[in-house]
């Protein structure tokens, strides 16, 4: 049994990379605007559906379809924040959360209206291949996940720490009011961050589309895994989201193999519940609870 462990680690880390990317994209939105985007899972899946639409209905090759899909989700995120989140940003949290949920539902409804009754599968950009090394198997999909996510992490690290845009975003992560005092156009940059966050999430969705049959309800599946990664890593922590995602990925495989296959589905629920009960701030987060 134990000889399976290296294999489980490898496939767990590969799928965990996707969770990490999705959690990271949610954390960026959260850090910028302190709004938790409850509709994010649906936007992630919308990324995969956009690729499907561009490839099947417009008959574009994969790469242009991917770029158009990311651009579309960037635009959607930008408009979403500008038109729906910004006007109520100073209102109660309840309204903000409900807004995100409602938009997520509207997107899901739109998808279900079009694809609800059929099994939609995103066309594959490449043939699946298997590689053997050190007694473990890796699929080309899994290698793609790892490479793309690692590249995205490096790119976002460089953008955050080296570019002017990144420094402005960091300033806004600290305090929006302070940022606006030194002349930063907070609204514009929040719009941009929402665009970037949605596009990043959509990239995760496209990669999920390689291994999943697309389903309008997969948005919630994605959302909960993203939340589990964020909760475990600590809300608002960028590296926490990535590490949390990797741990969830491995945990799903390990528990699913050694305990019961049922755990594959419920690991993320249990992680959320246990972490919030035992250590609400997660691994790297700030104080998370209200103490009275």
């Amino acid at each position: 049994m134990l000889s399976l462990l290296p294999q489980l680690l490898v496939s767990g880390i590969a799928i965990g990379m996707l969770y990490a990317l999705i959690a990271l994209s949610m954390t960026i939105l959260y850090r910028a605007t302190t709004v938790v985007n409850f509709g994010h899972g649906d936007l992630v899946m919308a990324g995969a559906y956009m690729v499907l639409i561009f490839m099947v209905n417009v008959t574009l090759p994969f790469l242009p379809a991917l770029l158009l899909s990311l651009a579309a989700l960037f635009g959607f995120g930008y408009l979403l924040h500008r038109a729906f989140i910004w006007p109520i940003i100073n209102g109660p949290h309840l309204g903000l959360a409900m807004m995100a949920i409602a938009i997520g539902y509207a997107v899901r409804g739109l998808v279900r209206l079009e694809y609800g009754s059929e099994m939609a599968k995103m066309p594959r950009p490449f043939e699946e291949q298997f590689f053997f090394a050190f007694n473990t198997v890796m699929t080309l999909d899994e290698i793609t996940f790892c490479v793309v996510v690692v590249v995205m992490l490096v790119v976002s690290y460089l953008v955050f720490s080296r570019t002017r845009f990144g420094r402005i975003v960091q300033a806004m992560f600290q305090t929006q009011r302070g940022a606006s005092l030194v002349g930063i156009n907070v609204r514009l940059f929040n719009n941009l961050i929402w665009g970037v966050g949605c596009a990043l999430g959509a990239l995760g969705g496209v990669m999920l589309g390689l291994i999943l049959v697309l389903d309008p309800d997969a948005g919630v599946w994605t959302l909960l895994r993203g939340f589990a990664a964020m909760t475990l890593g600590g809300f608002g922590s960028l590296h926490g989201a990535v590490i949390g995602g990797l741990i969830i990925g491995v945990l799903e495989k390990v528990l699913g193999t050694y305990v019961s296959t049922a755990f594959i589905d419920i690991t993320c629920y249990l992680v959320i519940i246990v972490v919030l009960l035992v250590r609400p701030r997660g691994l790297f987060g700030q104080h998370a609870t209200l103490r009275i």
Partner: protein
Amino acid sequence: MKLTRSVFWLLPIAALALPLLVNPYHQYVVNLILVYVVVGVGFNIVVGNLGQLAFSNVAFFGIGAYASAIFTTQLGIPWWLTVIPAGVVGAIAGCAASIPALRGVRLFYLAIMTLAFGELMRWSYIRTPALTGGSMGLTVPPAELFGWVLESETQKFYVFLVIVVVIVVAVSRILESRIGRAFLSIKNDERAAAAMAVPTGRYFVLAFALSGFVVGIGGSMYAALVGHLSPEAFDLVQLILHFAIIMVGGLGSLVGSILGAVLITATPELFRDWPGFEELMFGIVIVIVILFLPRGLASLLARVHPIFKDRYLRED
């Protein structure tokens, strides 16, 4: 003559004549509305009155429905006697859902946690086929009391009407009492409430338990109404329905819960043939309500006549 709130009693009295005017299918929709009045009233306690974002409502609804059905099928208890126990099971689930809140988990942390709880419950309906029938669903035998079988929609209507009246009156009494004021104080500012010696933790548990109880009874009514429970009935489409009811009606308003249930429940029946349409429509409706009418239709009604204003909402 000055109008008092006792005119509201005309509503259920007038409703007594309703079965004379409608056909059985419309009667079914009316019964469904009554179920969702109960659900909306229960859900609004936690979201509107306590001001907490909780997604556990569908879990309470499902737990109530399955509890009622399991008591009927496995133990052979007539449906009538399972209504209160279903509420109690829902209340226990409510207490369980409030444990994280006692640990200081608030805002979106609570929302995420209750979302996970709800999904976990839906998973367990599918994974315990011995009790719940799994994904095949569970058929509930018709309710029976002393040989009187509750078969027709009209019979169900009268029974449901009694339950709805009892629940609405009881909940309005509770919300107008010290308990309701404590809920509102926590909603407005929890630290300030605690500073005024309101035992906030206790009221958290109470609000969740009360909500679970009421929604659990709603679930039990649902089980009797539809006669067959399947796990898909308790998915996230159900959740958006509950949210739409209280958002459109008015957060924290009892009048709003009822109004929302009447308006929102009837509409999906019109759009059955297009899956996805209700999600799209409710999503858009909620967005519009948040942007332009954050206090829901109840706030419009309250402007028409003060009689519609909930007595415990005194901010405006």
